[in-house]
C-alpha cells in the first residue's frame, strides 16, 4: 500500500448535518475535497466527529447533481435546461402573473434548516418585502415549532438554555424522546463521557434505544412509555415532585410567578396524575415514575435534553411546557449543569427558528402585527410590509388544495417526502401553477415543480449556521459552487428579477443586516466569529462574545419571571382499534440523515440500505412473521411495504421505523393530526396494522438497488 497523498489546503467550516454543528477542517487537493478532519477548537465537538460529517460529504459530487437551471410550463413536460437569467426571468414572470390574477397572497415561500442564517433571512425578506405577504414558513414547523412555543411560554426563550459542555457538570441527565447516540452522535459521546464519570441517566422513550443501554452506559431508569403518553408521564413525574415536596421552593419564590406555580401544583398534584393511575395508561411501572422524579428533583444538577419524541405529537407544545415546568419547579435552570434543551435535528433549525422564517414573527420572535418592529424593517428595506400574519406551510398546502394558493418558492426542502399525509401534499403541489424548487438534486417534490434552481452545497458557500446550543459558527466556501452561484446569490438574483433592487458583496453583509434588525444577533459579525471561532446568542453589547448559559439572573419575559403552564393530559385522537391494533413511532438512525438526500448518495447506505420495521417478537408471532419478511403496514391514511425486523427494542404493541428512504414512504402512513398550538405533525403516533406479504412487486429492482448501494 503506498503512502496517502497529502491534502494541499484546509478550510475551517461547519458540518451541514445535525444540530450539533461540529467544526471541521475541510481538506482539498485541487478542487476536490479529500478529507474532513474534526476541528479541535470547534466548541460543539472539541475535535470529535461522526460518520456523517467526517465521511459522508461526497454527495456534493454525486452524478445526479443538477448543474443547470431547469424550467417547464407543465409538470407533465420534460425539464428544459436554461441559463440562470432565463430561469430567474421565467420564475419571476410566473409569480407576477399569478399574483396579478389570484392576488398578492396567492404565493408563499418555505426555507429550510439546511440553509444558512443568511439564506433563511433572505428568503423571508423575499416573501415579506418582495412578494408583499407573510406567507413564509420553514421546516422547523414539522419538527421543533412546539419548542419555540412551549419554552417561550414557560421560560421565555424558545432555545436551549445551555451550551453542550454544560452536560459535563450534570449529575442527572434526563433524555426525553431523543436518541443522541444516533441522532446527535457527537453530543451523544459527550453525554456518555459524563455518564462514565458517574452521572445518572433517565430515558423516556417508547423504544429501548442505544442511549438506554450501550457499553459502559446504562440508564438508571428507562420509562418505555406507550407512544403518545408523554404529557401523562411528565405530569405524573411532576405529581411526585409536588406530593413529595421535592420542588425548590426558594427558586420558585425568587424566580417564578408564584400564583401560577400554585395553580400548576393543584393540577399536577391531583390524584389523576398519580403514578399508580398513569403507570397503566403509559404502560410503565409506577415505581419507575417515582424513581425518575426523585432522581431528577434530587440533582443537585439535573438537566433535560429532548427531541422530536416530545414535539411531534398532538400535545407537542404541552409536552415542551411540561419540561419547562419541571425545570422551573426544581430550580434546574440558570447555571451550569442544568437546563432544558431541545436537540435540534438539522444543522440550522435554531437559525431557521430565530431568523423570522415564520408567518407571524420577524427575527427574534417579534410579531409582524407589532407596529414598532414592522417599522424598523420597513425603514431598513424601504417598503411597506403586510401587518397580517401569513399562512403556515400546512395551511399553504390546504389553500393550494382549495385553489386559492398558486405558487411557492421552496428552498432546500422536500415537503412531498418529509411532510405528513403525502397524498394531501401531492394534491396541493399538483394544484399550484408555479412551484420554484431550489435544491441540489431533483427529489420527490421536483416531480411537481416548474422551475428548478440548482443550489450549492454547504461546502460551496459562505454564511453561518446556528446550532442546537444557539452557537453561530461560520460556514466557509471550500470549493467553488458547482452550478455557478452560491445559494444566497440565487435568492438575491431572484429578488432582483422580481423587481426588488438589492445587492450584497458577501453574506457577511446579510449577517450585518440581521444584526441591525435582531436584538439577539446584534453583536454578531463574520469578523467576530472569525476572531473567536463561534458565539452563542444572545450576542450584544452586554455580552459581546455571546452567552453560554441563559436565564442566570432572570427569564426573558416581560416581568423577568418564569411561569408555569397548565398541562392537562389530553390523549391523541389517533388510537388503536381492532383494525389498527399497533402504534407506529418513527425515528432516525446514525448513518442516514432525514430523507436521505445527502447520505443516500454516499456509501453510508451500506449500513442502512432500506428502512425496516422493528416489531416485538410477540406481535410478530401473532402475525406469523419471521425476521426479514416483507410486510404491508396500513394505517387510516395509507399503506407501505417494507421488511420486518424482530426486535427487543420495541415493546409489544409498538412498531418502529425510520424515514430515510423515499421508496419506503413512511410518511404515506402517518396521520394528519398535528400539535394543537403549532401544527407540528404528529409523526410519532399512528395506529397501524402489519400483515405478512409475499415479496412485493418491483422488489427485484429494489433488491438490485440495495445490492448496488451495498457495493
Amino acid at each position: 500500500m503506498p503512502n496517502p497523498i497529502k491534502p494541499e489546503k484546509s478550510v475551517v467550516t461547519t458540518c451541514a448535518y445535525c444540530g450539533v454543528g461540529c467544526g471541521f477542517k475541510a481538506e482539498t487537493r485541487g478542487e476536490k475535497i479529500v478529507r474532513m478532519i474534526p476541528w479541535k477548537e470547534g466548541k460543539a465537538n472539541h475535535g470529535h466527529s461522526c460518520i456523517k460529517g467526517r465521511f459522508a460529504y461526497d454527495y456534493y459530487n454525486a452524478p445526479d447533481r443538477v448543474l443547470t437551471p431547469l424550467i417547464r410550463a407543465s409538470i407533465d413536460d420534460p425539464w428544459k435546461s436554461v441559463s440562470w437569467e432565463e430561469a430567474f426571468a421565467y420564475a419571476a414572470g410566473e409569480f407576477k402573473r399569478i399574483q396579478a390574477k389570484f392576488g398578492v397572497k396567492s404565493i408563499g415561500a418555505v426555507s429550510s434548516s439546511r440553509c444558512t442564517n443568511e439564506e433563511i433571512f433572505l428568503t423571508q425578506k423575499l416573501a415579506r418585502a418582495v412578494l408583499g405577504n407573510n406567507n413564509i414558513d420553514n421546516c422547523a414547523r414539522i419538527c421543533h415549532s412546539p419548542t419555540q412555543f412551549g419554552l417561550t411560554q414557560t421560560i421565555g426563550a424558545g432555545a436551549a438554555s445551555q451550551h453542550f459542555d454544560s452536560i459535563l457538570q450534570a449529575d442527572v441527565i434526563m433524555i426525553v424522546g431523543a436518541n443522541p447516540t444516533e441522532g446527535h452522535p457527537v453530543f451523544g459521546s459527550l453525554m456518555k463521557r459524563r455518564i462514565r464519570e458517574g452521572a445518572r441517566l433517565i430515558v423516556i422513550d417508547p423504544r429501548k434505544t442505544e442511549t438506554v443501554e450501550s457499553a459502559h452506559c446504562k440508564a438508571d431508569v428507562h420509562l418505555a412509555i406507550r407512544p403518545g403518553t408523554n404529557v401523562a408521564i411528565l405530569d405524573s413525574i411532576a405529581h411526585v415532585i409536588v406530593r413529595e415536596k421535592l420542588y425548590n421552593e426558594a427558586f420558585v419564590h425568587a424566580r417564578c410567578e408564584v400564583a401560577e406555580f400554585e395553580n400548576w401544583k393543584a393540577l399536577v398534584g391531583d390524584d389523576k396524575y398519580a403514578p399508580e393511575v398513569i403507570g397503566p395508561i403509559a404502560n410503565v411501572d409506577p415505581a419507575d415514575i417515582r424513581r425518575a422524579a426523585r432522581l431528577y428533583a434530587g440533582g443537585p444538577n439535573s438537566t433535560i435534553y429532548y427531541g422530536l419524541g416530545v414535539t411531534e405529537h398532538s400535545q407537542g407544545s404541552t409536552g415542551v411546557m411540561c419540561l419547562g415546568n419541571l425545570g422551573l419547579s426544581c430550580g434546574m435552570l440558570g447555571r451550569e449543569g442544568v437546563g432544558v434543551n431541545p436537540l435540534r435535528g438539522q444543522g440550522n433549525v435554531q437559525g431557521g427558528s430565530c431568523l423570522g422564517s415564520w408567518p407571524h414573527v420577524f427575527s427574534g420572535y417579534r410579531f409582524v402585527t407589532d407596529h414598532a418592529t414592522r417599522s424598523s424593517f420597513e425603514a431598513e428595506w424601504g417598503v411597506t410590509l403586510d401587518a397580517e400574519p401569513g399562512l403556515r406551510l400546512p395551511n399553504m398546502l390546504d389553500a393550494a388544495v382549495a385553489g386559492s394558493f398558486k405558487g411557492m418558492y421552496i428552498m432546500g426542502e422536500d415537503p412531498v417526502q418529509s411532510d405528513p399525509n403525502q397524498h394531501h401534499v401531492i394534491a396541493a403541489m399538483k394544484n399550484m401553477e408555479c412551484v420554484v424548487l431550489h435544491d441540489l438534486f431533483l427529489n420527490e417534490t421536483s416531480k411537481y415543480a416548474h422551475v428548478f434552481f440548482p443550489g450549492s452545497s454547504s461546502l460551496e458557500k459562505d454564511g453561518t449556521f446556528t446550532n442546537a446550543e444557539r452557537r453561530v459558527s461560520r460556514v466557509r466556501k471550500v470549493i467553488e459552487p458547482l452550478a455557478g452561484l452560491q445559494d444566497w446569490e440565487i435568492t438575491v438574483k431572484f429578488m432582483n428579477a422580481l423587481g426588488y433592487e438589492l445587492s450584497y458583496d458577501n453574506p457577511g453583509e446579510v449577517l450585518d443586516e440581521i444584526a441591525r434588525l435582531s436584538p439577539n444577533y446584534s453583536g454578531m459579525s463574520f469578523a467576530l466569529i472569525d476572531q473567536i471561532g463561534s458565539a452563542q446568542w444572545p450576542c450584544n453589547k452586554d455580552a459581546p462574545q455571546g452567552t453560554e448559559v441563559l436565564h442566570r439572573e432572570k427569564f426573558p419575559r416581560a416581568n423577568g419571571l418564569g411561569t408555569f403552564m397548565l398541562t392537562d393530559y389530553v390523549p391523541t385522537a389517533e388510537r388503536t382499534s381492532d383494525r389498527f391494533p399497533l402504534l407506529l413511532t418513527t425515528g432516525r438512525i446514525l448513518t442516514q440523515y432525514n430523507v436521505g438526500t445527502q447520505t443516500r448518495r454516499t456509501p453510508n447506505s451500506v449500513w442502512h440500505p432500506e428502512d425496516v420495521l422493528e416489531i416485538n417478537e410477540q406481535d410478530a408471532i401473532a402475525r406469523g412473521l419471521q425476521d426479514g419478511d416483507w410486510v404491508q403496514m396500513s394505517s387510516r391514511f395509507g399503506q407501505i411495504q417494507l421488511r420486518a425486523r424482530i426486535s427487543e427494542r420495541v415493546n409489544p404493541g409498538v412498531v418502529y421505523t425510520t424515514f430515510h428512504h423515499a421508496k419506503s414512504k413512511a410518511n404515506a402512513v402517518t396521520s394528519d393530526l398535528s400539535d394543537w398550538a403549532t401544527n407540528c405533525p404528529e409523526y410519532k403516533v399512528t395506529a397501524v396494522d402489519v400483515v405478512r406479504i409475499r415479496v412485493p412487486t418491483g422488489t427485484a429492482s429494489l433488491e438490485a438497488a440495495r445490492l448496488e448501494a451495498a457495493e
Partner: protein
Amino acid sequence: MWHEVRGLKDDVDLGTPPRDGPPVSLEIDGQPVTVPAGSSVMLAAATAGRAIPKLCATDMLEAFGSCRVCLIEIEGRNGFPASCTTPVAEGMKVKTRSEALTRLRKGVLGLYLSDFPRNEIPGGWSEFHETLKAEGITSHPYGEGGANHFDARVDDSNPYFLFDPTKCIVCSRCVRACAEVQGTFALTIDGRGFESKVVASQNQPFLQSECVSCGACVQACPSHALVEKSLFDGEYKHA
C-alpha cells in the same frame, strides 16, 4: 473533563489533555514554565516550546505510556521516566535532550522501524514518519528477515477507511479513542507481546464490528495504519 475538552488547541498537540489545577512552576531544559497542577511534563514541555517526541500520546487522550519515545531526565530522580505519565511538580528540573536520551530514543525508534514496511518510509507524512525525520532515524541495526508483521492482511471492509496492520505500531491510540472519545469500545488489543494486534469486536472486519465509523481512531492513528481511503488515488478513490 471540562478543561480536557475545552482547553484543546487546533495547531498544537500538547501530548496529554489540558488540566485546570492551580499553577505549578518548573524548568524544562533550563527554561521556566508554569502549567496547571495535574498536567504532565510532556504538556509543560510543549507549552514551553520544547516539544518532546512521542508516538502513543496525544492531547485528546489520557496518557498511556507505552511507546517509550518521550523519555526524559529529572534532576534528583533515577531513571528515564516517560514524560506523558509523569505529572509536573513545583520546582522540578527536566531535561528533554541528552546523549543518554538520544541513545534510548534511537534504540526504541529503530525497533519500530525494523517492523515497518521499508518502502513505505519515503514520502510518508504521518506522525511516525515526522518523528523519524525529526530524530534523524533512517536505519536500524537489526537487519532484514527478522520477525515482522509484513504479511498481515489489510482490512478494507469499511467504505471510508482502511486498516493496514503492517503499519500499526500497537500504540493503542485507536483503542483509546474508541473508548474515551467516542465511547463505543469497539476496538481492543488482542494477544500479548509481539503477537499483540488491534482488532475490532471479536476479531471481525471493521464493517461487521460494533464500529460506528466516527473516525476517531483514524484521526488518532500516528502511523497511517488507519487511514482515509479518500487520500489515495485510484483503487481507494471512493464513489
